[in-house]
């Protein structure tokens, strides 16, 4: 007698609708339009500059009518769309080490597999690689690797490291001279557009407006409950200003719209919008250090909002510019301000400066503690984080926790481990509170 085994394939459950507030939808439309601009280059004839988020000189790039393409943002998009894993493997197959930055490998793997943008069309080859070497060693090698592939011109703009917590005259002079004598003349030659410093000033004025509104949004998290999540939600908010929109009317409009939306939530006493709708009661207020994992971004976020945890401030939302301590792009000193901007981005700050920022956030935003998401393949962020954690705990008296994952490599996201760690952390906060109220 024979038996038959019936293989039953379960049907996928209908996709649950993801809740987004109006600003998130607007942001998504802006990003999509930019990808269309990039992939339409064969028709429009526009020229493209690739550059990085920290030290992104979008205003300057626009002065030459160049389109800005950011490989980190592309890697993030591929992570969110869950295709980065295969790109990383492809790059490793081509000889890139398993130990190095997965943004780089996602980017190189994407190129090897057709170089398609999120809209399914081919990315144009860059006309120039603007190597804004700011706060991350890997950037230098990344663009050397891209230069090898694209065989296009590469401009190095070296940002010195703010090791002593101050910007010196030597640093500014070095950067301004690089801008004046190397970056600008090369961009003029490649683009065929003459540099106009007044045009730069106009863009910088718009940057300042958007920066003001972004800061208002980020600082709304001081309220209880916080109307925003400054990490997971914050990543949506920083998209335009860290990407190809700083200095544009679109960015000014977006940040005004966002500010009004957040102020409305603030006035109504509402918490953040999550993919599952409004967050319930705010139970925990956290400061987060380090980038998120993008391949399981929503799952990671859910681990927070399911427990009533909201992130009130994060360091990652400062990698493309630190604005909440007063810096604004200054149209009155256009080149110096670009230098100051690059020098001040989060990953270009010394470890003691980073600790000061986190301590400040915990105190100012009345957070319950610090959570570090340590990224396996990002030494710029990760080296030193265990000392940072201890120091922040010591100076604030608030508990800290440490989880580990990766940027866009799905192999390094262990959901069960992270969830366990987070649950224990929330219990620790509860105990600390109980101890404090018993002592009172």
């Amino acid at each position, binding site marked *: 007698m024979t038996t038959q085994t019936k293989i039953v394939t379960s049907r996928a459950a209908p996709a649950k609708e993801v809740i987004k507030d109006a600003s998130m939808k607007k942001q998504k439309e802006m990003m999509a339009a930019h990808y269309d601009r990039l992939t339409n280059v064969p028709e429009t004839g526009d020229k493209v500059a690739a550059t990085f988020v920290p030290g992104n000189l979008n205003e300057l790039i626009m002065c030459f009518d160049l389109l800005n393409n950011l490989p980190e943002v592309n890697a993030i998009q591929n992570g969110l769309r869950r295709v980065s894993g295969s790109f990383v493997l492809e790059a490793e197959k*081509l*000889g*890139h*080490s398993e*130990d*190095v*930055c997965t943004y*780089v490998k996602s980017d190189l793997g994407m190129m090897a597999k057709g170089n398609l943008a999120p809209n399914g069309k081919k990315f144009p080859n860059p006309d120039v690689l603007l*190597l804004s*070497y700011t706060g*991350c*060693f*890997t950037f*230098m*090698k*990344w663009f*050397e*690797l891209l*230069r*090898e592939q694209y*065989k296009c011109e*590469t401009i*190095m703009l*070296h940002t*010195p*490291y703010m*090791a*002593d917590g101050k910007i010196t005259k*030597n*640093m500014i*002079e*070095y950067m301004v*001279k*690089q801008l004046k*004598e*190397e970056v600008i003349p090369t961009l003029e030659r490649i683009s065929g557009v003459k540099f106009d410093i007044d045009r730069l000033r106009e863009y910088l004025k718009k940057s300042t407006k958007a920066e003001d509104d972004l800061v208002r949004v980020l600082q709304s998290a001081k309220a209880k409950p916080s109307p925003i999540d400054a990490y997971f939600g914050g990543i949506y908010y920083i998209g335009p200003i860290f990407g190809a929109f700083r200095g544009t009317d679109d960015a000014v409009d977006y940040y005004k719209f966002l500010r009004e939306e957040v102020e409305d939530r603030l006035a109504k006493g509402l918490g953040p919008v999550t993919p599952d709708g409004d967050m319930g009661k705010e139970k925990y207020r956290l400061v987060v250090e380090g980038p998120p994992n993008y391949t399981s971004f929503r799952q990671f976020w859910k681990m927070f909002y399911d427990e009533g945890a909201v992130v009130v401030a994060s360091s990652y939302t400062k990698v493309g510019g630190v604005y909440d301590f007063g810096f604004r792009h200054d149209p009155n000193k256009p080149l110096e301000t670009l230098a100051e901007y690059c020098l001040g981005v989060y990953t270009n700050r*010394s*470890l*003691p400066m*980073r*600790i000061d920022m986190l301590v400040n956030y915990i105190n100012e935003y009345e957070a319950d503690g610090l959570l570090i998401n*340590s990224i*396996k*393949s990002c*030494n*710029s962020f*990760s*080296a*030193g*984080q*265990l*000392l940072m954690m201890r*120091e922040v705990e010591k100076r604030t008296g608030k508990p800290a926790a440490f989880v*580990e994952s990766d940027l866009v490599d799905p192999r390094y996201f262990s959901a069960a481990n992270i969830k366990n760690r987070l649950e224990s952390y929330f219990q620790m906060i509860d105990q600390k509170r109980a101890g404090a109220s018993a002592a009172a």
Partner: protein
Amino acid sequence: MATSLNPSATADIVARANVLFEDLSFTSARKWKAAEPGRKVIGYMPIYVPRELIHAANMLPLGIVGGGDQLEVIHGDAYYQSYICRIPRSTIELGVSGRLDFVDGMLFPSICDVIRNLSGMWKMMFPHVYSHYFDVPQNYRDDIGGNFYVNEMAELRHDLGELRGKPITDDELRHSIAVYNENRRLVRDLYSFRAERPWQAPAAEVYLMVRAGLVLPVEEHTVMLREYLAAARADERPMRDNCRVVLTGMFCEQPPLNLIKSLELSGCYVVDDDLLLVTRWLTGDVELEGDPLRNLSNAFLHHSESTAAKYEPNQKEKGQHLVRAVKRTAAEGVIFAAPSFCDPALLERPMLQHVLKEAGIPYIAFKYAENSGQMQPIREQAGTFADSIKLWSGA
């Protein structure tokens, strides 16, 4: 076969260097400091600092390149995740265990994000020690990167002057440059001699000789190099049927000495490498006339080694230093040996490999840590590489 008149001379010098290498308490540097009141010691990490500035302040530059395979790391691991290389954790171990308690200052050159961040950690963990991140330009124009670098050196010069209580004069600097020029010439002689007769200057011995320069006063080191060269030249040793390789990727975290020995035992003569580059970073003599800082800057910008921590502005030039090293030393292949999790070496590696492939130069690659204990896989890989070169080169 001729034998040397005094075969023990080489062994004696190597034995002395080995004692210095194994001494994780830095006894010789401690003795130097204790010999005269007011003496100071300044530690520095890879890849390069202008040691002339430290020397000119009558201080001892002390190279700190981690703890090697003999240091048990107890505290250091508590500061780093498993996915960060080993050199910072063993360096922290040296610090917290008191082995560097006689060091008056630490310099952290611009090489990678890990050493960069370690500079901030050091400031916090050892607040009473002068701690300085030494930035170097990635722009090689004299009037741009050069000006920046001169000013960075001027700041260091000022700080060191403050530390000793007296500014460093130009003449002091010129004297130090001359002293280091002589030392670098001898290191280059040693490398040339090894490339010529690697069986008479085994890689492990050359390494120990150069490594001694990280802890000895430069004048003493110069004497040691001269003596070793004389002894090694006189000490005829049997030539093996080894292939000749260039080693690359070892410019920061050091491999265990056994790893270097294993390569030769498995059939590879090391005829060039990028170990301890500080000792020969500047490829020619630094000018003595004129502004000493400007001269050091010129040498850095225009006459220094290529390595992964430097930006190469010219795509055509990328990796050519390796091809030139292979030609100069008549090497038959390249071994890429990088510390695990080393961003500069590992990100650079595919680009260099493409250049070698283009030039028809065979290569292999592996990773190590300063405390790697198991040499058998490396020996097998290097042995197979050596065999394949012997069997198939020119086929």
